[in-house]
């Protein structure tokens, strides 16, 4: 039934090989774009078929391991090249291939005329391949291969404009910060493998096997260490505190890359990994608390920064970090399916937002280019009033903004509200619930605020560019608008698959994912007080989360539509606060001071002190020694035939003498 799932990652790989190897020869943009998009579309069709197959099975039989071949077999260690098809990986497959396909389509229009068009599509396909490997792998090692693969593609695509120094730096920053996380991830894998093998004789890294043996694991102790390592990996990939500063810089890449990699798919890999290892995380309460607190803090922290940025993509980048924080909050309170649900809806509306901003930037760029203006096409202060020029982009953007702000009945409302409610009602973290909920709600308010600030500054009010540039503002071509419409449609209705039970309907999404998380849910129930069940309270909390969103929108409306001077007066009133938030809480500077500069100093010392003196000294010393010895010995090589002949003659005499007188 699932024998053909290996074709799903194969298509993008083929697309990568064709475009990567022959792209320079093909040259025709339409052909390259078609190859890249069709490869992902093929995967999408197969993923949909897989989902259909899975749905046709009874809920208890929806976990399948598909082994291709044995990859590594060494003593007790064994890793297969094998795929795991279960509801969780299936959901991820649909998101990656579905949203991925739309973004590929969009890229054909967006990247039109760019140098290295084929390179872009080759990287994009390679990324899709790696991401599919990451979510489909049935053991930690295969997952790690995908994990590293997406990191590589992220680096390549951030640095796509490699002639630009800032893009190269951003690529390096992303890669290096991810390496820190990957190191933690690896340590987690090693510790888990070693611990299970040493103390229980179970040498395995396969997810289903690990989950089957989860009951023998103790609570806390070594499991806490393992999960903390894994979580460090997740913070790197998903840009959480402390490894979050790479994601805003990653906006140097082309906008479709930001949409696909740095919003919809790759950055959610950390969330996916925690959900995949849920049986481990629920056995480490301290880690769960850490995850929840880090997620919560990140959600709030990034949201505050988002309120003060002027670069349209940077606002969205901080928004992504913030929303990822929500997902981690959900993971940390054991609401795994709620977190994955938010991952899915976030993929819809954030991809739509990024692609919409890309359309805006594209249009602004052309307009400013025609008017020979040097203004920054990404700066919202140069925009305004784009609504009448780009109506379709505006409406799709509007729907996605409403969705992320959490207004019912759009997708973001259902997922965000569920996380907030579960944060409030969950039994895991005692009285910290109120704190978690409070931070989450505040972040929701800020989300609504900064998103509507972005919307108002970009699309409403007066156009702030010169009239001649304004004359060149155009709606984007159909190939760019079509993905926007599809994604806006999904942002609008996507939430209905996961409506709360409170509405008297089945939560289809949660039921679908239940087989993956049911054992962890039982474990939480056994170990802790019962979850809060109070329909009235739940209605109230729902009202509260809608309320904060509305408040956020109202503040944005009053500040950026009604009274144009209010933001300036606000900045004037709180100059310090504004400066701190605008400069991202000086996080980059703090990291520079605490980590980057000491590292540089150490490296400089090792270079000037150790490498130059010790290493080079040893090498050069050996050479000098040899040279001195040679200089002495060369005196025997007089170059005169006489001397050689004489020594030969003496030699013969000596040999003969020895022979005779021995």
């Amino acid at each position, binding site marked *: 039934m699932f024998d053909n799932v290996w074709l799903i990652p194969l298509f993008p790989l083929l697309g990568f090989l064709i475009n990567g190897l022959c792209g320079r020869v093909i040259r025709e943009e339409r052909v390259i774009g078609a190859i890249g998009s069709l490869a992902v579309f093929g995967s999408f069709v197969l993923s949909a078929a897989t989902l259909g197959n899975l749905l046709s099975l009874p809920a208890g039989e929806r976990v399948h391991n598909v082994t291709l071949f044995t990859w590594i077999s060494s003593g007790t260690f064994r890793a297969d090249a094998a795929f795991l098809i279960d509801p969780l990986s299936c959901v991820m497959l649909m998101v990656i291939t579905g949203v991925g396909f739309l973004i590929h389509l969009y890229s054909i229009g967006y990247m039109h005329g760019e140098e290295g068009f084929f390179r872009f599509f080759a990287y994009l396909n390679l990324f899709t391949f790696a991401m599919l490997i990451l979510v489909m792998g049935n053991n930690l090692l295969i997952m790690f291969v995908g994990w590293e693969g997406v990191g590589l593609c992220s680096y390549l695509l951030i640095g796509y404009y490699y002639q630009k120094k800032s893009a190269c730096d951003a690529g390096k920053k992303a890669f290096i910060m991810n390496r820190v996380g990957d190191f933690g991830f690896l340590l987690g894998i090693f510790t888990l493998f070693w611990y299970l093998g040493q103390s229980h004789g179970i040498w395995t890294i396969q997810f289903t096997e690990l989950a089957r043996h989860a009951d023998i694991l103790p609570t806390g102790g070594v499991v806490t260490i393992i999960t903390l390592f894994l979580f460090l990996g997740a913070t790197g990939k998903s840009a959480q505190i402390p490894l979050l500063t790479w994601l805003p810089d990653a906006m140097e890449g082309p906008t479709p890359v930001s949409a696909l990699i740095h919003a919809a798919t790759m950055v959610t890999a950390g969330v996916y990994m925690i959900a995949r290892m849920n049986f481990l995380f629920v056995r480490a309460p301290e880690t769960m608390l850490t995850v929840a607190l880090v997620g919560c803090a990140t959600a709030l922290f990034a949201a505050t920064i988002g309120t003060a940025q002027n670069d349209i993509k940077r606002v969205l980048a901080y928004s992504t970090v913030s929303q990822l924080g929500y997902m981690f909050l959900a993971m940390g309170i054991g609401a795994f399916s709620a977190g994955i649900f938010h991952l899915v809806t976030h993929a819809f509306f954030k991809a739509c937002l990024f692609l919409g901003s890309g359309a805006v930037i594209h249009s602004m760029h052309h307009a400013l280019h025609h008017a020979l203006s040097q203004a920054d096409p990404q700066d919202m202060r140069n925009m305004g009033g784009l609504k009448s020029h780009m109506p379709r982009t505006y409406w799709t953007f509007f729907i996605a903004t409403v969705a992320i702000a959490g207004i019912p009945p759009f997708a973001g409302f259902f997922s965000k509200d569920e996380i907030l409610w579960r944060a409030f009602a969950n039994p895991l973290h005692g009285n910290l619930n109120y704190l978690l909920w409070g931070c989450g709600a505040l972040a929701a308010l800020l989300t609504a605020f900064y998103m509507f600030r972005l919307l108002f500054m970009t699309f409403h009010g007066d156009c702030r560019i010169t009239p001649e540039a304004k004359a060149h503002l155009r709606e984007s071509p159909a190939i760019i608008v079509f993905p926007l419409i599809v994604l806006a449609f999904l942002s609008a209705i996507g939430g209905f698959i996961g409506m709360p039970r409170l509405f008297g309907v089945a939560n289809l999404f949660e039921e679908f994912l239940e087989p993956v998380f049911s054992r962890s849910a039982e474990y939480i129930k056994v170990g802790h007080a019962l979850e809060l069940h109070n329909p009235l309270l739940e209605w109230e909390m729902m009202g509260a989360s809608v309320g904060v969103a509305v408040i956020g929108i109202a503040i944005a409306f009053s500040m950026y539509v009604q009274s144009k001077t209010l933001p300036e007066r606000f900045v004037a009133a709180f100059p310090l606060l504004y400066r701190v938030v605008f400069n991202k809480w000086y996080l980059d500077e703090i990291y520079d001071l605490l980590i980057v500069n000491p590292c540089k100093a150490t490296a400089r010392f090792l270079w000037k002190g150790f490498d130059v003196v010790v290493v080079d000294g040893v090498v050069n010393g050996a050479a000098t020694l040899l040279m001195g010895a040679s200089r002495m010995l060369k005196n025997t090589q007089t*170059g005169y035939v006489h001397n050689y002949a004489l020594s030969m003659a003496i030699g013969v005499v000596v040999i003969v003498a020895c022979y005779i007188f021995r």
Partner: protein
Amino acid sequence: MPALHDYLIVAAILFAIGAVGVLTRRNAIVIFMSIELMLNAVNLTFVAFSRYLGNIDGQIFVLFVMTVAACEAAVGLALMIAFYKNRESIDVEKMNLLKW
């Protein structure tokens, strides 16, 4: 009729004279002649032993040695002339271009 050892003594003396000549003289032509002397000393022992043992092989060998010596003289003298054209001298001490 001299005995075998008389020939061998003469040959040894000739060889020693040749060897000393090669080692001590600086004129390339003289060194050359000394080498010829050494070769002929060897030829003499070949012939002497050939007669003594009644075996013709030694005498045939001498013909080979003489052929090679003739070739060597031709090549060697050509070298001398070439060298003399460059340096106006055939002093082997001055043949030191490849010396460090």
